């Protein structure tokens, strides 16, 4: 697993580097940060404008305060249509709210149509990456899976596997009663739902079934249609290193009179699910700028070690570790804010300049203030701070650390134990520098 994750993440990271070297990276980042910040600080206005634009386009707008509410909206639409089957475009929001389980519980057959999502649906696994949900699975894993399920050869080429998935999906696309998608962006002025992809499954999922439901996090708004161009390119460059996705769908309502293709109904479900609370947080609101490109996952040395499943919910990597406390609550998210060396690689690549390391520290501060950190750690830090204010005592303590026979007792000491599990004991200097320095000064 580790080698598959590391290799895939590195490849994506290297492609991103190439793609960003071709553009004025700082200028693009500043522009995107400012645009998203503007939207978030005027979100109520833009939501109202978007609702009017969508209605004018013939879309039906729904509001969902929670994930459960959003699921209920979709189930009610499905029940009204007497729908039996659903095709889904890849959507992290639907992973966040557990839509698939809810739909299946209501008796619907759900098919994920993104190839990566298709693979993990067959494996009954959650996604391990925001952009590449099956990134933790190697090609050989997929070969074995397709061999068992569809009888393809054990050495089948990736092209053969993709073609096989396509055949399986084709009838399901044609039979589906409902197509469900997320949204990368939604332009408030024109009511346009923007979706970026490489495989074409999103376009099919949103155009063949008679009804299309788009679930949209309220932070996905942009003011103007013309803002989409920059954001779509920026997201593609960050996510996969492409100048633009292979397909960009700009959906502006249901099929109109005289048009041959497209759904009869388009529903847009605006989902809050904790976002308004997060927006009210004086520090953490900046997380809502996230465009879900996954660049911070790809560059993160911790993510490369652990993969996405270790984070325990839909969003993994650095962004997952700061988003979890915001949407799930801090207690439920422990110890994610601490699962970082604070190396800062994530902040360097974020296309909307989210200060991820600072926000990790912010959640740590909140956790410490709310008593969610280990009592021993709290006590140690209090003692450490007091010692630091008393240099003589600090010096005695530092001498004592040097005198500890760590090889013999280290494994029984808190904190040191964690170090000793995986590393040789550090070798202290014979005498501390400050001791020798002060002796030299006295001698003068």
């Amino acid at each position: 697993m580790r080698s598959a994750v590391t290799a895939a993440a590195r490849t994506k990271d290297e492609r991103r580097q190439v793609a960003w070297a071709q553009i004025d990276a700082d200028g693009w980042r500043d522009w995107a940060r400012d645009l998203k910040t503007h939207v978030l600080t005027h979100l109520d206005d833009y939501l109202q404008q978007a609702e009017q634009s969508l209605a004018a386009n013939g879309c039906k707008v729904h509001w969902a305060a929670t994930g459960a509410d959003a699921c209920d909206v979709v189930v009610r639409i499905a029940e009204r249509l007497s729908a039996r089957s659903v095709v889904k475009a890849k959507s992290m929001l639907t992973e966040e709210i557990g839509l698939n389980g809810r739909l299946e519980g209501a008796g619907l057959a759900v098919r994920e149509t993104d190839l990566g999502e298709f693979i993990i649906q067959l494996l009954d696994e959650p996604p391990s990456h925001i952009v590449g949900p099956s990134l933790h699975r190697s090609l050989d894993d997929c070969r074995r899976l397709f061999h068992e399920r569809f009888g393809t050869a054990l050495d089948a080429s990736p092209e053969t596997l993709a073609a096989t998935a396509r055949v399986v999906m084709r009838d399901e696309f044609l039979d589906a009663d409902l197509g469900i998608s997320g949204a990368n962006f939604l332009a408030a002025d024109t009511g346009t739902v923007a979706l970026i992809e490489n495989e074409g499954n999103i376009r099919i999922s949103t155009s063949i079934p008679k009804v299309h439901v788009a679930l949209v996090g309220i932070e996905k708004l942009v003011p103007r249609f013309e803002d989409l161009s920059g954001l779509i390119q920026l997201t593609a460059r960050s996510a996969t290193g492409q100048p633009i996705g292979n397909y960009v769908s700009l959906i502006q309502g249901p099929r109109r009179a005289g048009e041959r293709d497209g759904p009869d109904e388009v529903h847009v479900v605006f989902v809050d699910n904790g976002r308004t609370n997060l927006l009210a947080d004086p520090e953490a609101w900046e997380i809502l700028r996230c465009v879900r490109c996954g660049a911070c996952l790809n560059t993160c040395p911790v993510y490369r070690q652990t993969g996405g499943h270790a984070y325990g919910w839909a969003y993994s990597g650095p962004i997952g570790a700061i988003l979890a406390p915001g949407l799930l609550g801090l207690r439920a998210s422990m110890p994610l804010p601490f699962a970082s060396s604070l190396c800062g690689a994530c902040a360097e690549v974020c296309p909307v300049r989210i200060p991820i390391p600072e926000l990790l520290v912010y959640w740590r501060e909140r956790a410490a203030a709310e008593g969610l950190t280990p009592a021993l750690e709290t006590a140690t830090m209090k003692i450490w701070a007091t010692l630091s204010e008393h240099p003589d005592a600090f010096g005695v303590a530092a001498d004592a650390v040097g005198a500890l026979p760590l090889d013999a007792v280290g494994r029984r000491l808190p904190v040191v134990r964690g170090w000793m599990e995986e590393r040789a004991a550090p070798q202290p200097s014979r005498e501390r520098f400050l001791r020798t320095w002060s002796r030299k000064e006295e001698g003068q």
Partner: protein
Amino acid sequence: MTHAPPPSVTFLATCVADRFFADACWDAITVLEHFGVSVSVPLGQTCCGQPAHNTGRREEATRMARHTTRVAGQAGAVVLPSGSCAGMIRSCYPSLLSRDTSLKNGSIRERGAEETSTLPDRVRELSEFLVHDLGVLGRRWSDSGEATPRLGSGLEGMRVAYHHGCHALRELGVRDEPLALLRACGARVESWDGDMECCGFGGLFSAKFPEVSAGMADRKLDSLPEDVDVVTSADGGCLLQLSGRAGHRATGGEPSFTHLATLLRRGLT
């Protein structure tokens, strides 16, 4: 022709280097004095507060930041043999010392001497100070008098792998300085695929998530170029992590792990 008075600096050893890299502290001072710098070492120095900051103990981190600010004096450069502690002071102190220390009560205190300190602007990692403040690389090529002290060639033939500590790299923007100094002293700095990747130290992170942290160190060690004599870094914490992991694996043939200050002192000859 007038000469500028020899610069004087305050040296903060940092608690990690004081305890585990005492020789490197002396080496840093030797290098500074070689270039005519007068070095003072305040004996009241302790810890910059980074462990408390990284574990979310804002109040404790602020107390330690106040103490360090008082100890470091009012003027002149403050030089540290650590990018991480220098980064803590430069990028975290301003916010620690300007915001209220307690998240619970919103009381506003009067701004004291620590809040208005210029320490964050005066703090320097050693190689940063040598290159930018002293201009020691320029001296090598200058035609000034014989008495001008210069770097030597004491590292001639040495094959070095340089680990960029994350905070030196990203908080201080120190990247080329240590490499240029090592090369100027004759070292051959080998290209290392993972040189800018985190070693997995991260302070308490290394003890809280030992397996993940060790995996990160392995990735560094496994990608080391062959036949490297010395792995070096401006940060003692990273060196403890890398050497500790290498010692634990004991695969044999490990390079030595040596602080940058020590190599630069050897480079003077």
